[in-house]
């Protein structure tokens, strides 16, 4: 029988990882929902965000400035990428955009390797120290990550619900042509959403950085998991991907009580396959009428 405190620790770990994953997956699902683009470069945006964060951190010594700076830089990069590479491809065969984003991911990965070298970098977390959780010392920082992610996602939700541009985004997601006929500049909405997605990926990268060390391959694991989340949560469904992130991360966290974490990933894939077989529109999507 597994001791209760271990279960609790894993539950908290699951939620923490889940929140970061939610941050990454939200951007991905937003981008897909509005412009039908499967962004294979998302993990690289995460990774570059972390790297830019380390550079700014080294210069300024402040974690918070690094976080903000990384988000802004990646938002700009995301916008530039979308305008140059994806906008001309709007309306074409989805395979074309998949290839395009895959190409971007390769370019970004190798750029990072060239620019920053193969040695992992470090960011120091803003809050060190632990608190007592039963007989385990649990780092404060991990709780901070979960809290910040929740705040960012909450902010996004409020923006989408009440902001003018939020309404533009939601209208464009539902009916691109009608939104355009209402004077909404659809190409710019697409760019904006891509930038937001990139910024969120960057934030996740910086937040996650202190946990693992920043290296050019850190994106891959997260991209893969993010895609699983997006499918399980329902493609384009923001609420669904958040729930799915937490759900899958909790499952994996509990699974790693019995097997190694590397093997625990299998759980996520099992859920993915079951979802595709039985509820392909997403587990957390209300049945379409």
């Amino acid at each position, binding site marked *: 029988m597994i001791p209760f405190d271990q279960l609790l620790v894993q539950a908290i770990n699951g939620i923490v990882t889940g929140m970061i994953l939610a941050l990454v997956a939200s951007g991905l699902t937003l981008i897909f929902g509005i412009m039908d683009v499967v962004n294979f470069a998302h993990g690289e945006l995460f990774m570059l965000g972390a790297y830019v964060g380390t550079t700014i951190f080294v210069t300024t010594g402040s974690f918070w400035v690094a976080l903000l700076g990384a988000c802004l830089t990646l938002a700009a990069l995301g916008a530039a990428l979308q305008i140059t590479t994806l906008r001309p491809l709007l309306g074409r065969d989805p395979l074309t955009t998949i290839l395009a984003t895959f190409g971007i991911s390769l370019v970004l990965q190798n750029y990072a390797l060239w620019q920053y070298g193969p040695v992992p970098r470090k960011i120091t977390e803003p809050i060190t120290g632990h608190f007592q959780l039963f007989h385990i010392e649990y780092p404060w920082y991990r709780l901070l990550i979960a809290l910040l992610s929740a705040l960012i996602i909450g902010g996004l939700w409020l923006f989408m619900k009440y902001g003018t541009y939020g*309404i533009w985004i939601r209208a464009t997601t539902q009916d691109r042509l009608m939104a355009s006929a209402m004077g909404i500049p659809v190409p710019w909405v697409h760019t904006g959403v891509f930038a937001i997605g990139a910024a969120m990926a960057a934030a996740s990268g910086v937040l996650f950085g202190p946990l693992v060390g920043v290296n050019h391959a850190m994106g891959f694991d997260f991209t893969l998991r993010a895609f699983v989340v997006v499918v399980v949560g329902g493609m384009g469904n923001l609420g669904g991907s958040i729930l799915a992130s937490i759900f899958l991360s909790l499952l994996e966290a509990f699974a790693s009580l019995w097997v190694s974490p590397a093997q625990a990933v299998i759980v996520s894939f099992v859920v993915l396959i079951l979802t595709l077989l039985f509820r392909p529109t997403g587990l957390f999507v209300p049945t379409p009428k």
Partner: protein
Amino acid sequence: MLDLQDVHTYYGKSHVLHGVSLEVSAGEVVGLLGRNGVGKSTTLKTVMGLVRPAAGHVRFEGRDLTGLAPHHVARRGIAWVPEDRRIFRLLTVMENLRTGLDRQGMTEPRKQELLEKVYASFPVLRERRHQAGGTLSGGEQQMLAIARAMTLTPKIILLDEPTEGLMPRMVAQIREIIDVLRRDGVAILLVEQNVPLTLEVCARVYIMEKGQVRYRGSARELQANETIIQQYLGVSA
């Protein structure tokens, strides 16, 4: 004000408009009649920039609109109310209206004023303002679609079959709205299958067949001309 010259539009290889020419002057209510499938909706979509003509020109207030993206066309002062209404089903009534209200150059007081005016014309929308668009009845959705177009304070509204599928009471309401719009000086290009309604509200009408304009004249003239009505709009061949 709105001028189409010899417009040819294709859907893929299907040649749907074979050289359409028509005009609408400022403040005029003009009808576009014809049976199913003759290209009436396609004409409106071409004006709106939703399809790009293969040949010909669309001009508005003297400036060439041909091939402009729809959001630019909307900003020049043209609003579109499509045949299938296309309201944003997951947005509330209020949010649907905001897609038009929240634009450049609109101050808060001005938005409130416009909103009040729209609610005055469509009281049922005020009642349902927090309801999701998809939960409205067909007639209410049509009201919302027209109201939404009005929030753009357009110079001309392209109205595609507003009375289709509506009960007679709602048809009467639509008729009133058209009057309100006309009194406000908004021009309307009205595509309809309801011939009597069209002849009542429009000053001039065009009749299309097989992608071309086959008749143009005043509504009064057409009303008296049973032969033409039967030929192009009725069941005889």
